[in-house]
């Protein structure tokens, strides 16, 4: 199994396509950081316009923690597309170049092959998120310094003390990994049914875009189905950045307002991963390999 995994990882990192995602993330984060460094105050002023009519903020509002939050908010919607590029190619890519039949002549079960391939895609996803964390969080902290994190939620504004933020990012990135693994599992599942890479990649991207739009639209009929869409639960990483208040409405450091939501959303995402991979294993076992 370990050898299989090593082989699959070798295949992933041998392809130039794999590095597109790393380069794209570095470029996007770099551009956002440059823009905020040059004209970040205007951006913050625009975003905080709603509150700045009544309140004055003193301190380093545009600090590394806020920059990382802005980047995550922007990128975690788009990173699934980059993950689909690799995950949706895992099986279909082999079918396309005609190596799948050869692979199955090896003395390993189909389930082992599928698990090794998915694990390799999961490791790629993990590395992509680690890369993102290094650039979005650590580089931003170095460039913009640290201070309290102020976040605008739909109904209220949250101020997180600077010494109460870092662990939340660890939790948020951990949750983001689950969300991205769900995308990887979906792409992987679709790649079982195709003999070329383009189809499953485009299908995965289309499904993610379609469901994300449904998840974010505040139209009552869509709101009824939103809890059942996995894309709705992918944004639950934001729950790490909300805290409880005491009877005097003072925020309590180290707390999470809606811990139950995080657990529930994580459970739903894990269930999706298991179901997608389960179906993939079942389908692959019954698949008539012709290429």
């Amino acid at each position: 199994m370990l050898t299989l995994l090593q082989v699959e990882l070798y295949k992933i990192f041998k392809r130039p396509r794999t590095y597109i995602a790393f380069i794209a993330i570095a470029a996007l984060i770099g551009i956002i950081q440059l823009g905020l460094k040059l004209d970040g105050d205007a951006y913050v002023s625009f975003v905080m316009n709603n509150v700045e009519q009544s309140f004055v903020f003193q301190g380093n509002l545009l600090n590394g923690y806020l920059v990382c939050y802005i980047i995550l908010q922007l990128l975690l919607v788009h990173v699934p597309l980059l993950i689909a590029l690799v995950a949706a190619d895992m099986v279909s890519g082999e079918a396309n170049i005609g190596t799948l039949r050869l692979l199955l002549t090896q003395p390993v079960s189909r389930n082992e092959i599928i698990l090794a391939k998915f694990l390799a895609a999961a490791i790629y996803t993990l590395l992509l998120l680690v890369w993102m964390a290094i650039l979005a969080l650590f580089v931003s902290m170095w460039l913009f310094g640290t201070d309290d994190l102020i976040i605008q939620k739909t109904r209220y504004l949250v101020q997180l003390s600077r010494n109460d933020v870092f662990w939340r990012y660890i939790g948020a990135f951990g949750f983001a990994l689950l969300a991205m693994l769900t995308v990887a599992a979906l792409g992987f599942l679709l790649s079982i049914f195709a003999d070329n890479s383009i189809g499953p990649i485009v299908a995965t991207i289309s499904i993610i875009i379609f469901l994300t739009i449904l998840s974010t639209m505040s139209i009552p009929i869509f709101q009824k189905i939103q809890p059942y869409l996995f894309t709705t639960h992918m944004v639950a990483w934001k729950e790490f950045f909300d805290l409880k208040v005491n009877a005097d409405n003072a925020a309590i450091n180290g707390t999470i307002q809606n811990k139950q939501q995080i657990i529930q959303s994580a459970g739903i995402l894990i269930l999706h991963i298991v179901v997608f991979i389960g179906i993939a294993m079942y389908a692959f076992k019954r698949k008539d390999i012709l290429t």
Partner: protein
Amino acid sequence: MKYFKIVLLILVLAPAAKAQDETPLIEKLKQKLNQVHEYVATGKMKTDVAFIKAPVGNVKMYYQQPNHFKLVRDGGISILPKGGISINMNSIIAINNYVALSAGNAMVDGYSTKIVKLLPMNENNDIVLTTLYIDEKNLLIRKAITTTKENGTYQIAMQYGQYSNWGLPNKVIFTFNTQDYKIPKGVTLEMDEPLTDADRKRMQQKNGRVEIDYTSYTINKGLPSGIFN
């Protein structure tokens, strides 16, 4: 007969109008507060606004005559009501050209106070009207309601302790009106969360409060240079 009535009215009201002038009381207060040329105070600030979740923070206040005031959160970002928090008693009393009129008496926190309406004569002043509740016996301002041109109306309640001889409070409760807050879900990209009864009650609150508990004052010992720049 008509002229006789007018003259009689003037004769009756003139002494009363003179009695309403509270300028001497304000001047006495000014003298007391003018003992403080500058101070650095430390304290804890608690923000209670329906749509803000902020932790209690350590703050440092810097004041210099006549009306320089700065509040800095010790390590962190401070969220302050616009314009209002800089209105402290020293800066209100620092107005030179004013009319002070008596408006009766009232009890504040168990202290008998005289209500004085303070009207700045300078039309460019941001403060339009201040109602002071003055504890004449101890020569302390117990409560003040200030109406400004730009930033609405604020109420400042003060509690005194060991620094009462300087006219400086141990606790200040600052109350102000807040506006509604709502950002579309499409912008924040959040999940829908059901509102609890406690949340709903909290959201309906239209007044905001900032409480500052002063722990220490360093009076007339100088200030860090450039602190108000």
